[in-house]
Every structure is written in structure tokens, then in C-alpha cells.
């Protein structure tokens, strides 16, 4: 069957009929007084088996006469066993009071999707971190592991601490990621919290306008944002250097010059932080505005009656009551800062300079380059594992520090 991607079709048959089988069968079992959870399981298995067997048979039977139509018709292969199952399964006389058909029919397909699309890749990454795995190499018979993709134990983690180029690059990327996060988190909070309070204080007609304007960059393509800021920071034709030139300041190669720095901070790192903040702050702003609207006015009124000024109300009432929201937003900001990639990839490509000394080489870029450019999947998976651990630890610390023991 020339031109037919059988593996892709198998995947379609699996995903379609696993979901249809486990989604519909519980409802039918429920109507027939049978256990919907049992129905979900049976539907899942029958859907997968039927989809694979009859999908393939329909494909090979129809392909000689209608090669274009055959892949589409093969998609209904799962119905061959499922329809008899749905129609012929006998009703029981037993009366069931609890009807969980809908729950079983929605939860089971979702669990299946999560297992296939999230849990399996996570486990795969965990396994790869202990292998010197490259898709270029022909490995052993089981998932390509072994053979030319040998088990290396903790070697990748030892390399991270070594003087080898990979180790130096990893440590530089980790340091840059931490520096990026350390800059973004406080700056984001310093901008968004006061801005949210100010927007909350304006006339109600203006509020949605401000919200929309500040939220616009969030829904803008990151690549577009990066290109725009790339032009602003351009050494020769950039808007920023033009403005600085008006004050007699010599042009700066913001994104190219490794020696350029602002208050000791590499100019390239600062530039990507600014671009990132510009795009990201609207997200937290909207959350803070919602949080401010949830604070009962009576609490602030009570403070004012007691003689508190606006500043005191903000510091002693509003801010403490926003603590749970600050926790959530700071956790989300840390996670997204650790995952920064697109803006840096477009603005600096991780440069300027060598990967082990560049100020904008970050962890995700390191993972991307190693996994998809140099095909060192095992090494990339080990870096991912470390990054996962770091995000988990920082999140845990934030949760402890910002935890509140009360509700309003």
C-alpha cells in the first residue's frame, strides 16, 4: 500500500475507538442496569481491538479499488464489534439505584488520553535519562533501548557536574534560567499588583478597556512579540538606540555584544526579560483584578473607619488578603519562566557567544538543541528531569512561604 502511513492510521484507530468505546458503552450498560465502569473497560478493549483489526481489514480490502477512500473508510472499523456489543448485550433484571454512566463515560476516555499522551511520555523521558539514546542509532529490540543506545546509569548526571562542554553548557543554562526567573518574578509582581489596584480604582466603564489593552500581548504570538522586540533592540536600526542617540548615548548592540551590560546585568539577558515581561504581565494582571474584586469591601471600610490611609489599607488589608492569589500567580510565573524558549530562540538563538558562556542560553533551549538538533535524547531527558525537580522544589518552597491559614 504505497503512500499509506500505516503507523499513523493505527494511532488514529486506537485513539478514536478507545475513546468511543469507553465513552459510549458505559451509557448503554447503565441503561441496561449493568455496571457502567465494567462497560467502560469492556468498551475500551473492544473498541481498540475492533478498531485495529477491522480498520486494517477495511483498508487492505478497499485499497485496490479506492486507494484514496480506503483510509477514511478504515476509520469506522471499530464499529464492527462495538455495534453488536451495544445492541446485543442483554439487560439485567437487577435494579441499580446509582447511575454513573455519564461519569464513567467521560472519565474513562480522559484517563486513557492522559495515560497515552502525558503519563507515557513522562515515563519515557524518565527512562531515557538513564540511556545514551539517539534516534539515529539502531538500538535493541525493546523500544530501541540497548544496543547502540546503551544503559549508562547516572552518567548523564555526573556529566552535569563535570568540566566537559556538555556539563559547562548545562550549568550555564541553569544559571541563566535561575537569573531569568529571579528577574521576571519580582518585576512581574511589582508591575502587576499596583497596576491591578489602579485599574480596580478607575471608573467601571474604563476597567474593561484597560483589562483588554493589557491582556492583548498575552494572546499575541510569542514569535511576533520576539520579532518586534528584536527590532526595538536592533543595534543599527533599533528604536531604542535611536531614542538613546537623542540623548547622546552611543548605540548598544543589545542582543549581540557580550560585553554590553546594564548595572552589571548582561544587556542581552535584560532585553529578553523585558520582552518576556511585556508579553506575560497581562495574564497575572487579570488574575489580580479578579482577586481584588473578591475582597469584601466591608473589610476595607472597617479599616478606613479605624483611620487607615489608602496606603495602609493596601499594605495591611488588600495585600495580605491577596496572598493566596500571589501564591498561585508566583508559582505559575516561576513555571512559565523556567519554560521560556520561543522569545529567546527568536531574539538571540541562545547567544551571543558560546553555549557555555552565553547569557541567554536557558534550560529549555539546551534541551531543545540537544534533543532535536543534535539528537542526544538521553542527555536532553536527563536535563528535563533536573528541570522538573527544580520546578517542583521551588514550587514547594513557595507554597510553604506563602501559605495562609485563613479564608475570607
Amino acid at each position: 500500500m504505497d503512500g499509506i502511513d500505516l503507523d499513523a492510521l493505527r494511532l488514529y484507530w486506537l485513539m478514536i475507538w478507545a475513546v468511543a468505546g469507553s465513552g459510549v458503552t458505559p451509557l448503554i450498560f447503565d441503561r441496561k442496569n449493568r455496571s457502567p465502569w465494567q462497560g467502560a473497560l469492556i468498551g475500551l478493549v473492544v473498541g481498540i481491538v475492533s478498531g485495529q483489526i477491522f480498520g486494517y481489514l477495511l483498508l487492505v480490502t478497499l485499497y485496490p479499488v479506492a486507494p484514496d477512500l480506503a483510509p477514511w473508510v478504515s476509520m469506522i472499523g471499530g464499529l464492527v464489534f462495538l455495534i453488536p456489543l451495544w445492541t446485543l448485550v442483554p439487560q439485567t433484571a437487577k435494579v441499580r439505584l446509582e447511575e454513573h454512566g455519564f461519569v464513567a463515560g467521560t472519565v474513562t476516555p480522559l484517563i486513557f488520553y492522559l495515560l497515552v499522551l502525558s503519563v507515557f511520555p513522562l515515563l519515557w523521558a524518565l527512562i531515557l535519562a538513564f540511556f545514551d539514546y539517539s534516534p539515529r542509532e539502531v538500538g535493541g529490540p525493546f523500544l530501541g533501548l540497548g544496543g547502540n543506545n546503551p544503559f549508562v546509569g547516572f552518567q548523564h548526571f555526573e556529566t552535569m557536574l563535570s568540566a566537559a562542554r556538555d556539563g559547562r553548557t548545562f550549568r550555564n543554562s541553569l544559571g541563566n534560567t535561575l537569573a531569568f526567573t529571579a528577574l521576571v518574578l519580582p518585576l512581574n509582581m511589582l508591575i502587576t499588583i499596583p497596576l491591578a489596584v489602579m485599574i480596580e480604582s478607575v471608573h467601571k466603564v474604563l476597567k474593561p478597556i484597560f483589562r483588554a489593552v493589557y491582556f492583548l500581548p498575552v494572546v499575541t504570538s510569542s514569535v511576533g512579540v520576539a520579532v518586534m522586540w528584536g527590532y526595538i533592540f536592533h543595534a543599527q536600526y533599533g528604536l531604542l538606540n535611536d531614542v538613546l542617540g537623542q540623548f547622546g548615548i552611543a548605540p548598544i548592540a543589545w542582543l549581540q555584544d557580550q560585553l554590553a551590560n546594564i548595572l552589571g546585568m548582561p544587556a542581552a539577558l535584560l532585553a529578553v526579560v523585558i520582552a518576556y515581561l511585556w508579553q506575560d504581565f497581562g495574564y497575572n494582571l487579570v488574575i489580580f483584578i479578579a482577586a481584588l474584586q473578591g475582597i469584601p469591601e466591608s473589610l476595607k471600610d472597617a479599616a478606613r473607619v479605624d483611620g487607615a490611609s489608602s496606603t495602609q489599607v493596601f499594605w495591611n488589608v488588600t495585600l495580605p488578603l491577596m496572598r493566596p492569589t500571589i501564591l498561585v500567580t508566583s508559582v505559575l510565573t516561576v513555571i512559565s519562566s523556567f519554560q521560556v524558549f520561543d522569545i529567546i530562540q527568536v531574539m538571540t538563538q541562545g547567544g551571543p557567544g558560546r553555549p557555555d558562556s552565553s547569557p541567554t542560553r536557558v534550560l529549555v533551549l539546551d534541551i531543545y538543541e540537544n534533543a532535536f538538533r543534535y539528537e542526544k535524547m538521553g542527555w536532553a531527558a536527563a536535563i528535563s528531569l533536573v528541570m522538573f525537580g527544580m520546578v517542583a522544589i521551588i514550587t514547594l518552597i513557595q507554597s510553604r512561604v506563602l501559605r495562609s491559614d485563613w479564608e475570607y
Partner: protein
Amino acid sequence: MKKLLIVFAALFVLSFGVVTAQDQVTLRLWAHQEGAFNEGTQALIDAYMAENPNVTIEMETFEYDLYIQTLQTAMPAGDEADILALFGTWVCSYADRLAAMPGELVDTSQFFDAPMDGYICDGETYGLPQEFNLEYGAVLTNKAMFEAAGLAYPPVWETWDDFMVDAEALTQVGDDGQMTVTGYHYTNADAIVFAFLAGILQNGGTYWNEDMSGFVFNSPEAEATLNQMKAMVDAGIIDPVLFNDSSNWGGDAFFTEQAAMVLIGPWAVQYGLGDFPDFGEFDYVALPSFGEDASFAADSGWGLTVSGNSSNAEVAWDFVQFAAANAENALGWNMTSGTIPALRVLVEDDMYSAQLLEALPWLEPVLPELQYGSYIGGMPDRDLVFYDIIYPTILDMLQGLLTVEDAMLYMEEDSNASFE
């Protein structure tokens, strides 16, 4: 339940369908997206299908970065196309998953050694080259800028000193002290790497150790080359902070008149003319040599390979032979894609070379240089060594962030680690 089981059993028995034999052969061909290249390949496909009506070849193209990712995920899964356009220098790293050329299908000595050697791994041939990838030997020059600077055109440089005089005259600096036009742009990633390797060879050295199991970048010849490259920066003909691979890339800088001369392969001309069709006159001019001969190292360029998973490998190889080893077809592809032929006869036979130069006149000074080219040699990860080690290290040295000695040490140590 009994009825249900009977229905399932009946369906099972009935379901063993019939697979009929196929006369029609459909092949898929994968390539990276590059307008002129794809146009040339499509013309070859059309011609082959006209000669072989039972064969259908479908070309699918991918953006360059996506192509590499697609290859690396599709090949282990066995989903890749039957015919894969690969860059010759990559071929040996994919050889385990490619089909070797059957028997004596093509006499590989018809091709120049530099492009052909990339397709030969452990004595087996895994594809045929379509282009000679030349990145060093001649420089692209802008006629109008030479004339505006009052320089003779076309220039003839007997020595590097002659060259530097012209490059300095062509360089322009703005009122704010920033360089606006570089006289000689040689700081693209490929340009830096190939100038460095050529410099080592022309100074009488070699960049491989004896058994080609590691690099020798810490040598007097490498030092002499790096000192010469640095001397060009010190002479003020280029600002390596403003002009490099990620900022004012050479191809763009040349066609936007920010570079009067650029060290770049002829493949960039078609690309530049596509974006700037009204660009004025330009030529390639041979560079002076560092030593007595003009040796240079060359990548093995783009060519065609056959997947080891192809169920029609014989037909696929027939197409590869048709596209790369047939002189008329190969010439058509080179003329459309604007590339230098890998097939010797297209350069050495007057009739073919006249046709080639009529379509691509700027190649005239380049063709005599091809004889000096040799394959760069097989390495575990060419892109890693070139773009993540040699290029950024030399650029750091040119920007004054590393000494020549440190740069040599870093390059040798880090590049050799890629063999482990």
C-alpha cells in the same frame, strides 16, 4: 450473550479480506523547503514519471529545522519516505537506516571526491550527491560598490595585502561610529569554519590526527590562520559584533548592500536573487591563497538517498540514478537550483559547462577551484562541531573575548569530546 459471541465469531471469519497485487508503484520523496531546489527536484520527478508511467513520486517538503526533527522521529518508527534528500555530510550518521546502493549501479568516480565521499560509509555507498558544496575559495563581490569606491573591477588579488587594500576602501562607518558597510563579511558560521579549515590546509597543516579519530586545532597552522582572521578585524574591515551569522547574516548583508564582499557559497545567490530580483551586477572572485596551493575543505552537499524501510528500494534507486548520475538531468537540477555540479562531466565537458555558465554566469571563477577541494571527513556530529564549537569560539576570539591560544584549546578539547 451466546448470540453476541456467534456474531463476533462470524465477523472474524468473514473479515479475512483479500489483498491484491499492485502494479502501480508510489514513492514518497522528502526534502527540505528551498524554492529553487524543490523546483529542480519536481522537474526531475515529472520527467521520471513521464518515462515510467507506472511510478508515481510524491514530494513532501519540510522547513529545514522541522526536516531534521521529522527525520529523527520518522526513521526509528519506519515512517520516512522512500527517497530522502540528505546533506552528504549527514549521511553516515543515518547510514544504519538507509539502503546501500545495489551492486555497481553507478560508477561513483563520475562524481567529484569532495561531494561523493560523504555518501560512502564503511565502503558502502548510501546515496548520490547532486551538488558540490563550496563555501570557500571565491568571494561574492558587488560591482557598483567597487566602482563607487574607485576600485578596479573585477579585482585581481595576487596577495592578501592586495585584498585588504580593497576591503578597507570598501568599508564604511557612520557618524555614530558604528560600521554601516563591511568591506569583507567572512563571519557567517559556514564562512568562519571553512576559512579556518582552508587556512590550516593552505598553511601546510592538517586538522585531522593520523587515524582521523580526532581533530588537531591546536597547531602552528591553526594559530597562523586565526591570527590572520583576527588581523582583518583589527584592520577594521568588519565589526564581528554587528556582522555575524545571527546579526546581519552575510547573504542578507550582501544583497542589502551592507557588505561589499561576502564569503558565501553560490547556493546563496539564487536565494538572494529570489528576494532581491533587481540587485545589480555581482561576480565571484577567487581569493588569494594562504600558502602555495589553494586547498580547501568542502562539505558533501545535498543529494538523494534511499530509505532502508522502503518496500520499493529498487525503483527508488532507479530514480536516484536518473536524477544524479544522468548528465542531462543533473545539469537541469544544478541550473534550476543554482548549485555547483557534483558530476565531473558537467564541469569538465565544454558543452555542459557552457550550458551551466550560460544559466549561472557567476560560477565561472568558481569552477577552476573545484579541483582543490577535498571532503571535510566524517565526524560524529558535524553540526555540533561546526556551529556550537568552532563558529562561536572563533567569533568570541574575533570579538576579543578569547585569545587565539585559548580559542585553539577550547576548539580542540570540545570537538574531540564529540568523538567519545
